[in-house]
């Protein structure tokens, strides 16, 4: 019974969806205020979602209709599954097994993959180009992001998120692994396609990228998925690098602090072209995090 509760109501399901919307609102509001705009009201993401869900979902000609309908569901399901293994709201993860870190990371990538497939599924040229860019970007940030999250795993000596989080609660790993922290945070921005990594959905070039043909329910589900991913990503980074999220208060303070940082970066930077994004990740991101990773392994090896 408690498992069902965890899945559907808290911390998974309804609660995490609302949290995703709340975080999306905070992000949008902060960016708006930084840009000297008023910004959306607090219920705007919820209103957007309700409006989209109430609308007709147009299935365009020339797509595989089943795939078109099912992809957003898989994307959201992937993100929601990831929630069960991370300490959201400062609580212990609902489920936990050895190696759940890897599963979680790939559950998060499922959303991006689904978006890429969704774009490639349609005949729309903007979607196709968006899909190409989405997947290109996925391949550029994925490896560094993974390595950045494996750093804490190495020092904690476990691949289980709860164990790593427990270890990290006593150690501010941001101090010992600053590169990993930066790469994880920036990788999260790439994952969420936030500026300056929003080339896959650059509206002035390719309208809405891979999701151009999506409307109504499908679009709402993708948006919800992104909201959930934002919370999960922030939770992971906060739990691993910022001294852990051991209670709801710390959770709120640390993830929101990270979100302020994200909003600031979004406001300050110009969108990177897709080739610049790839260049940035492989030339600097991957290299730096790899150096740190090797150093960690050597360090652990010498100590042990």
């Amino acid at each position, binding site marked *: 019974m408690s498992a069902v509760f965890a899945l559907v109501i808290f911390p998974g399901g309804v609660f995490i969806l609302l949290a995703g919307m709340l975080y999306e609102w905070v992000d949008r509001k902060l960016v708006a205020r*930084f*840009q*000297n*705009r008023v910004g959306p009201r607090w219920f705007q993401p919820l209103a957007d979602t309700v409006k989209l869900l109430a609308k007709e979902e147009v299935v365009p000609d020339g797509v595989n209709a089943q795939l078109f309908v099912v992809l957003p569901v898989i994307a959201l399901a992937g993100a929601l599954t990831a929630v069960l293994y991370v300490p959201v709201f400062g609580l212990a993860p609902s489920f936990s097994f050895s190696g759940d870190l890897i599963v979680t990371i790939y559950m998060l990538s499922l959303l991006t993959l689904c978006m890429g497939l969704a774009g490639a599924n349609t005949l729309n*040229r*903007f979607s196709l*180009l968006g899909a190409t860019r989405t997947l290109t970007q996925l391949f550029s940030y994925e490896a560094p992001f993974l390595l950045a999250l494996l750093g804490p795993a190495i020092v904690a000596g476990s691949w289980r998120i709860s164990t790593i989080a427990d270890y990290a609660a006593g150690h501010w790993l941001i101090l010992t692994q600053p590169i990993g922290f930066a790469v994880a945070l920036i990788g999260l921005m790439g994952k969420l396609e936030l*500026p*300056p990594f*929003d*080339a896959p959905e*650059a*509206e*002035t*070039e*390719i*309208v809405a990228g891979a999701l151009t043909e999506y409307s109504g329910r499908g679009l709402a589900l993708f948006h919800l998925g992104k909201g959930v991913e934002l919370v999960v990503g922030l939770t992971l980074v906060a739990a691993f690098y910022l001294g852990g999220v051991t209670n709801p208060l710390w959770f709120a303070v640390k993830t929101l602090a990270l979100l302020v940082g994200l909003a600031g970066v979004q*406001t*300050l*930077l*110009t*969108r*990177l*072209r*897709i*080739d*610049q994004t790839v260049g940035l990740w492989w030339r600097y991101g991957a290299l730096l995090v790899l150096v740190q990773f090797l150093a960690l392994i050597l360090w652990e090896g010498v100590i042990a």
Partner: protein
Amino acid sequence: MQVPIMPAKGEKFIIPIGPQHPALKEPGHFEFSVDGEVVTGASLRLGYVHRGIEKGTEGRNWVQTLYLLERICGICSHVHATAYCLGVERLAGVEAPPRAQAIRSLVAELERIHSHLLWLGVAAHEAGFDMLFMHSWRDREIVMNLLEGLTGNRVNYSANVLGGVKCDIDARQTDAILAGLEHLEDRTRHYLTVVTSDVMFLRRTRGIGVMTKDVAEKLGVVGPTARASGVARDVRLNAPYAAYDRYPVELITATAGDLEARFIVRVQELFETYRVIRAILADLPEGELTVRMPRRIKEGETISRVEAPRGELFYFIKSNGSDTAERVKVRTPTLPNMASVLTLAVGHQLADMPMILAGIDPCFSCNDRMIVVRDPAGRGAHWTWDDLREYGIEYYR
């Protein structure tokens, strides 16, 4: 050097941009053929906001035509009216009083601030730099309020009448304008720093869309686009009109010819504009605002050129001695500059296209001057709401 004509259809992957597209604030239709992300060909189709204005001038008298031409463009409406008024006055053999000419220049320069700040925001938005977009548009409100105080309108100021201007300027407005300029100058200095030193932004502008001086001259580009490539071309300087011989403008050029240079030239032009406005306000001639214009203009032809914010605006006006114009030809600065977009597009990344397009500050309303209301049922000129609704439903059935 070739202006690409059409991408070879069939085997290429063609990205259509427009008529409706988030990068375009006005409708135009571009087709870019791409190889991966690299553009290999480009073509252009205009006319989505063509309103038949050149033809429309043939059925209107000289005064009505003024108000029609002023509505060619919402951003640079004043320069259209100025070019037309100066041309018609020359044909009629009258000259507007010095105070009117000075006010024409004053409004033109305020309009230039408004246009350049608008452009700065749009161009930044194309690059995904929304911070600059929002801030420059906020500052644009200042100059729009000044224009409203001066003429009564935020756009389509209607400052010009044939033979002079309709609005005078008093001490209170002078003070308001000077105070506004003070603030704007401060902000402009900040924007100049941003466009020349923001590392991420420079990655999107430096070395992108380079047009050499030679190419620029050959394509006949005008305005800031030409000046950014080192071509000394500014009608205010080359052929002073209105009051520009009294308040001379200094030429702003750059040599790099890339997008960064176009940013720098436009932002630096703002400083020059502030200086000219201050000079006009400090030394405004006294006197009448209008002279009497004849209703019929004597036969003849004239060419009137003014420097719009986007470059040289070219008017050819022919009178047949009656109270209507025989022919008014308008060549707006966007048309020659547009050829440069298609030329520069080839070989660049698709992601650079919106920036290169924005780099010339295109104005489709200026380009397109004719549109035809479709009426499949032959119902005549007046459409009721029900007609329109029914038409819309039928169209998509």
